[in-house]
């Protein structure tokens, strides 16, 4: 019998490309005969241009469920995902991790008395037990927990990749995309939307940046962040920070790189004043060039750096800015 995997996708004025890495992961880790059902819930019309962003495989089917009730509240999505599971009867529900999706799937998992593995980065299949094993970082260190699910006809999983997942294939397959209708009860009497305020953050695009300037406690003062921004601006890159800077209130959590922050995949990573604690390192992917600057020559970061400098982070940032400016011919 075919193993059915349901991939719910919540589309919110973003890109559908985000799904591709998830589909690649499923395709490469689940080798048994399977059916992958991608369902996109949206309140806007998805045109061909958007749909062409999807890199699908032969065993994929795509359904689109538009509804004007889909917005910023979890409720309508909870109803819709429940209906989809009743319709498609999957053995596994897999989604990319984000707070909103977890909030939705958590309630749906209860409805189906299902086990829910939250934020794993890898799936393995154990031949002897014929079960899936899910890998998840544990205790903020380079220790992973191997998790399995029992007594659960459906397994719910959210994936939080450690580093960029390579997309398997570039070619377009001939996959049928069905547009459907769905009725959702509107609980407008209990939850009423008032307004949306877009936050003014510096347009950082941390997760897609190819060059990232990482900054840690070694910069000593909140004021010194400006050098990181200057360097990033010179190189067309983004700025990211370690958890202590967020805890200190020097930067917004949106800029945090690491286990409980963002996962990035730059080609070039500068680590200024970063010690190299495992819960940060697991978020930086596999950069081609990692330049580490730290006052402590025994800092863990030097174990994974290509170039290491033992010096004050802020002073070194300033020198880098000067040299880059000279080389790039800017004043």
């Amino acid at each position, binding site marked *: 019998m075919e193993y059915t995997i349901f991939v719910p996708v919540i589309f919110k004025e973003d890109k559908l490309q985000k799904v591709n890495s998830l589909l690649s992961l499923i395709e490469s880790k689940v080798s048994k005969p399977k059916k992958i059902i991608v369902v996109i819930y949206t309140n806007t019309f998805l045109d061909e241009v958007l749909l062409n962003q999807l890199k699908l495989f032969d065993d994929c089917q795509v359904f689109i469920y538009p509804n004007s009730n889909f917005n910023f509240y979890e409720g309508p999505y909870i109803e819709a995902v429940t209906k989809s599971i009743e319709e498609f009867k999957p053995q596994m529900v897999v989604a990319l991790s984000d707070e909103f999706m977890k909030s939705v799937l958590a309630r749906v998992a209860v409805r189906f008395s299902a086990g829910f593995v939250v934020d794993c980065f890898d799936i393995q299949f154990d031949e002897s037990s014929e079960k899936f094993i899910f890998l998840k970082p544990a205790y903020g260190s380079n220790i992973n927990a191997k998790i399995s699910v029992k007594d659960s006809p459906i397994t719910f999983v959210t994936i939080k990749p450690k580093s960029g997942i390579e997309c398997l294939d570039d070619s377009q397959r001939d996959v049928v995309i069905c547009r459907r209708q769905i009725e959702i009860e509107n609980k407008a009497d209990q939850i009423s939307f*008032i307004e949306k305020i877009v936050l003014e953050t510096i347009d950082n695009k941390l997760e897609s940046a190819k060059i990232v300037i990482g900054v840690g406690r070694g910069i000593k003062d909140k004021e010194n962040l400006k050098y990181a921004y200057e360097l990033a601006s010179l190189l067309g890159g983004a700025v990211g920070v370690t958890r202590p800077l967020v805890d200190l209130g020097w930067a917004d959590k949106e800029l945090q790189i690491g286990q409980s922050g963002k996962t990035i995949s730059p080609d070039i990573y500068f680590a200024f004043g970063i010690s190299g604690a495992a819960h940060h390192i697991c978020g930086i992917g596999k950069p081609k060039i990692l330049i580490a600057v730290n006052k402590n020559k025994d800092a863990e970061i030097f174990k994974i750096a290509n170039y290491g400098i033992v*010096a004050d982070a802020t002073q070194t940032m300033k020198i880098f800015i000067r040299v880059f400016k000279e080389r790039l011919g800017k004043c």
Partner: protein
Amino acid sequence: MNILVCVKQIIDPDKMEYSPITKTVKRNPQHLLNNPADLSALEFALRVKDTFPDSRVYTLSMGALECKDRIKEIVELGIDEAILLSDKRLAGSDASATSYALSCAIKSLGKFNLILCGEHSLDGETSIVPPQIAEYLGICHMTSIVDIKPKDQNTLEVVKKIENALVRFEIKLPVLLSVKKDSNSVRFPKLSFMIRALSYEPKILTLDNLKDIDVKRIGLEGSKTTVDEFEEEKIENFSCEIFEQGNFKEIECIVDAVLKYI
């Protein structure tokens, strides 16, 4: 208004010691602390009580009896009653089993107009417990809340954070909200509350006090997800050349290497 805040006592993540030999984590009760996001949730509850002084704020924790010391810190903030669900049979519960146990405890305690939780705990960080409690209780919920303002005894205005936007809603009670860490500053204890806390004993509940709890759905047996084992990840050892002092020449070379790549 009856308000319940779920507060978890967690092991300080900076003090957790993992032993690769025994493959277990050393849990020292001295290193317990109240989960910061839960304290933000509690602060919002107390602000509602400031606005409507007839409201009562209860806290519910689940854990070993050693949690009592940390619970006293919550009492100092000015809550009405602290409850601790403590039973050896709960040991080994995963997030879902925990949600089930907590919801049974909440049902036994009575009806609450507002239930607040922290969004993430510093240990675990799954964030699925609050929505699952809401599902077991059959009430609406919303996560990622960064502000709560009561409008009247039945209505709240809340702000939810989504990616880089804030969305404001008006919500009619009852509802469960999960609150982001650092969305407010937790108040300082008042002297009278500190004195009360000195001799205060939280109300202890065991599974026998809960009506209608199915013990097969809690603990290790009731958990549908289990940690089979831990494994250490090997970090590849690059041989990195380390330059002392950050000589100008060295930085110029690195810059050239980077520019060649771009």
